[in-house]
């Protein structure tokens, strides 16, 4: 699988290349700014773009804006954003754009836990999601209670939904919560019911549930 990296810190870029190679990717382009990233995605059409949020020339949210453009123009490229801080608005913007490619939004420091990071990268490249546990925790706190449909979820269901939002599979959730995989499936069905997601949508309901969880987007 081919990947491009956009990160303005050279030190970090070298490390990211190493990690992606460990994960079995071929890094076809490295760049330090938004324009370079767009050009690289245009040229290589990679499976994955690893993007820093803050890049030259403005050092603000270039990464997010570029990521949104990539999702529009190259729907086949999965985007994994790395940010020093997690701002849920950025996450919501990113997830509001639905394509078949995966998407991720992680704190930069997560790359330090190399195995977990590789796991997240592979998941995103395979079309899944990887949300930083910190974003998920923030959203859970905010959505707890009130007239929100999410308020109807039991605490355990919310845990399951949070892990789903992070992008884990049923098996992964079961391992994390130390329950059986069938128990997880039961919880997930209950979540779908409570969020009014009819079974006709099949696998897609997972994403819809997460989206609903993130920001009232249908």
């Amino acid at each position: 699988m081919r990947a491009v990296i956009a990160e303005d810190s050279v030190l970090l870029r070298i490390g990211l290349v190493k990690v992606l190679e460990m994960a079995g990717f071929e890094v076809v382009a490295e760049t330090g700014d938004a324009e370079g990233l767009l050009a690289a995605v245009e040229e290589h059409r990679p499976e994955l773009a690893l993007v820093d949020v803050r890049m030259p020339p403005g050092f603000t949210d270039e990464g997010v804006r570029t990521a949104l453009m990539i999702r529009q123009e190259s729907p086949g490229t999965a985007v994994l954003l790395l940010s020093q801080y997690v701002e849920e608005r950025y996450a919501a913007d990113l997830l509001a754009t639905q394509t078949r490619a995966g998407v991720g939004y992680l704190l930069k420091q997560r790359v330090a836990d190399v195995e977990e990071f590789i796991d997240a990268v592979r998941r995103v490249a395979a079309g899944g999601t990887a949300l930083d546990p910190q974003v998920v925790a923030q959203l859970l706190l905010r959505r707890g209670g009130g007239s929100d449909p999410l308020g109807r979820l039991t605490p355990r269901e919310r845990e399951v939904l949070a892990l789903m939002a992070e992008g884990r599979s049923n098996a992964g959730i079961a391992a994390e919560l130390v329950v059986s995989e069938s128990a997880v499936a039961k919880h997930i069905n209950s979540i779908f019911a409570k969020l009014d997601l009819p079974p006709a949508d099949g696998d897609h309901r997972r994403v819809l549930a997460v989206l609903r969880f993130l920001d009232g987007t249908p």
Partner: protein
Amino acid sequence: MAIRGGAPRRTYTWITAHAPWSAWAWRNTTFTAAAIPAALPVLLGLTATVMAPGPGTIPPLLILLIGPLLTRLQRSRFRTLLGLDVPEVEREGSRFTPFAVARRLRSEATWRQYGYHLLVSPLAAVAGGLVVLAWAFGTAATCVYGWIWILPADTRTPGWTDDYDTVTVGGVLLLLAAPWLAALFARLDSVAAAALLGPNRARELERRVEDLAESRAGVLDAADLERRRIERDLHDGAQQRLVALAMNLGIARATLTDLPPEAKAVIDEAHREAKEAIEELNNLVRGLHPAVLEDRGLDAALSGVAARAPFPVELTVDIEQRPGATVEAVAYFVVSEALANVAKHARAERCRVHVVRAPAPDGSARGADLLRITVTDDGVGGADPARGTGLVGLRKRVGSVDGTIMIESPLGGPTVITVELPCGL
């Protein structure tokens, strides 16, 4: 002895200092007398107007024209003869364009100066004349016996000695009084000059307040800019390096599986330390100035703050037009500090934050919109701004932009903090 002798010596010193021959007497006399030549143009002009009403309108116009010159002359009289510096009225712009002249004619300071030249200056000249006469008559009357000896003896009337004794005493008294008269007139003149020739005090204070407000706003902006610079430096420097370090340690941990346990433990430890350092640095940098505040404004930045609070926060931000960067920074600080306080002390279940941009109430001096921030929690209440250091910091930060803060916190709750910040800054 020294104590006893002190009082008479002081009296003596005082008398000599104010005697007719003292420097003090001469200084005041010279100053008062100098009012006569300085007032001559005005006196001549006024006389001409009174004598010939028809073409007499020309001299007042001339006075109007030489007004600034007269002001300089008078100011120089005060400075050189009395050592009194009448502050100059500051002029803006160049001197001789028609616009500048028109503006000067409209200015209140100009007309105060003409008031001095047309009213006080003639009076001062009269006073100066009186002082000169007092000296002259005093001297002449004191020396009356001297004059008498010059005259032939047969012109002296009988009983002249009694009359001339009176005249002599009168002359001496007049001589003694002359310096005091001069001092009195000099004092009155100085007071009038300070009020009419110098700048208007109230106006001056007003301008000073404006200047101070402006410079404070500058200082605040500079501090804000500096915080942003530090944030940027840390973000692009130390933070990235630390992340790279932690990542390399992570790679080492993942790839070097056949290390001896001691070495593995050391790498694990270093890896953990690096991650903790990143976490600490993140918290520090975020407190300085959140990048998202600059990019997306208060709504987005506050949603982050609200989300990080350890209890549900209902946030509504109703701002059409973004306020200035400094005001935004203060508003961000207010909300994050208030929520931190709630988390620490209030034992609240939930919290509501409402931010709205409201038009200024009528009669507001600045006329700028207000940013009204309301933080309400359902905690135990009893927040006392006199004790809580968090609230003191809040109050200072709000005061720095001329904002107001109101804290209602009855025991048992709920606590409502209302902050109003002028957006215009």
